[in-house]
């Protein structure tokens, strides 16, 4: 007996289809913009139209597109034989990472929520941050190779221009930033900025990963498209002088050694 799988994602009918209980053509078509569409697809939640610009802003602040950056470099290498889909697929696989990519946003969101719960329970800001860091580390903090994450700086500027910096999670983030900096020497990165901004428009911590993933597709797609068009020999195989072997030195196999010593038949495995 085959089990029936429940789904709330959608269903196709003859002339009208549904997505999370909403009619595609009779309800959504012409009435939601791209930001709302993305959030609906990743969370099942219909975002208020006035919050959609935040989604666009997040997509842009997450929009680093330099082909030399590792998650984008992988799409160039993977598309080197002319298939942009392979580039996109391998780019997506790389984001199955707890260190880099959309999963870091959910971890950062849970960290902010942990701090918020501590504050709600009456702890001082410092105590709430310390307790949360004891439990979870400091996800969303730390900026490699530079002093500040220019993406969260840009996002903060946008939210301020919209009057959205007064929303609770962004305010909390701004409040805890000097505490984390004092304790760990770590500035905030775009993961915690994304988490705060998304929660301030009604998304939950676990919504941050899939929504972040959707918003991060364009840089990977753009690189995969150009990479597939170029089909560069230089990425199909790096030039020999660009590969440095640091592994085991040359050696003879035990069976070859036997043959060398006059025993065995080197022609038969």
């Amino acid at each position, binding site marked *: 007996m085959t089990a029936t799988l429940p789904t709330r994602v959608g269903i196709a009918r003859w002339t009208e289809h549904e997505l999370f209980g909403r009619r595609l053509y009779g309800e959504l078509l012409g009435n939601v913009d791209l930001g709302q569409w993305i959030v609906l697809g990743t*969370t099942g939640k219909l975002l208020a139209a006035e919050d959609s610009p935040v989604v666009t802003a997040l997509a842009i602040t997450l929009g680093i597109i330099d082909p*030399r950056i590792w998650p984008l470099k992988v799409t160039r290498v993977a598309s080197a034989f002319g298939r942009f889909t392979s580039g996109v*697929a391998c780019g997506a696989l790389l984001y199955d990472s707890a260190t880099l990519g959309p999963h870091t946003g959910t971890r950062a969101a849970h960290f902010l929520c942990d701090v918020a719960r501590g504050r709600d329970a009456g702890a001082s800001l410092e105590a709430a941050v310390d307790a949360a860091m004891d439990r979870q580390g400091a996800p969303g903090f730390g900026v490699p190779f530079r002093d500040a994450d220019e993406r969260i700086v840009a996002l903060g500027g946008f939210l301020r221009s919209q009057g959205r910096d007064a929303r609770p999670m962004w305010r909390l983030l701004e409040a805890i930033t000097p505490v984390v900096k004092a304790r760990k020497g770590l500035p905030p990165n775009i993961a915690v900025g994304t988490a705060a901004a998304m929660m301030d428009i009604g998304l939950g911590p676990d919504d941050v990963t899939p929504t972040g993933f959707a918003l991060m597709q364009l840089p990977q797609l753009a690189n995969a498209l150009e990479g597939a068009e170029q089909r560069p020999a230089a990425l199909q195989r790096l030039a020999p002088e660009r*590969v440095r072997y640091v592994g085991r030195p*040359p050696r003879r*196999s035990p*069976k*070859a050694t036997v043959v060398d010593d006059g025993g065995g038949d*080197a022609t038969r495995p």
Partner: protein
Amino acid sequence: MSGSDVGPVEAGPWPEALDARVLDPPRVHGYDLEEDVCASYRFTDAVYLAVTGELPGETESRLFDLACHFAAVMSAGDAAPHTASLARLCAAGDNAVVASAAVVLADEARAIVDAHGPLLAWLGGDGGGPAPEGFTEGAGGAAVIAAALARRGLEARGVDEGLTREAALLATLFASGVRTPEGLVAVLTWARLPFAAAEAFAVRPKAFAKYPMRVPPFAYEGEPR
């Protein structure tokens, strides 16, 4: 350095070459595949070398080869060949069919390895005692693997203790010397890939009417969240 054209990539002390730790053509882990390994070993031995860093002895080679045979047994309804078959059905290129199978095989392999963590710890431990709970199903689960081992005069700890088939397969690979999670994932994926792909390539592209759309059934719960 400063300026609008300079960023971390330009400014950083990045190395000028990619480090290679295993592959030094024609060598793998130091052994010449073409002149040495090819002359004296099976291809499964070369795979074993890649995964473990050393060539197998005769017993390890036979255990590994046997395990790979059993690993390759699968159903067309398993997720990996099913995924690849759907890609083929949708007329995706051969590359995408194979890649689709590889992705799901690797996911499945990782799920298997993760689920058998306590078993692998037991296999690697010094103590005795029975296999940990949850990996045995009494007589029958691994009987065909146990019988195959016995016919070849081979042994793998735990296989004769009523392990499940999956557990017995991992135990056999472990006995052969493939013991790391990444090694097990790599071997399970590699061993199964041609078979999953073969099932997919037998599908006629665009024969949509032949695909069981309602298997398994989905029940739409159309309430807005």
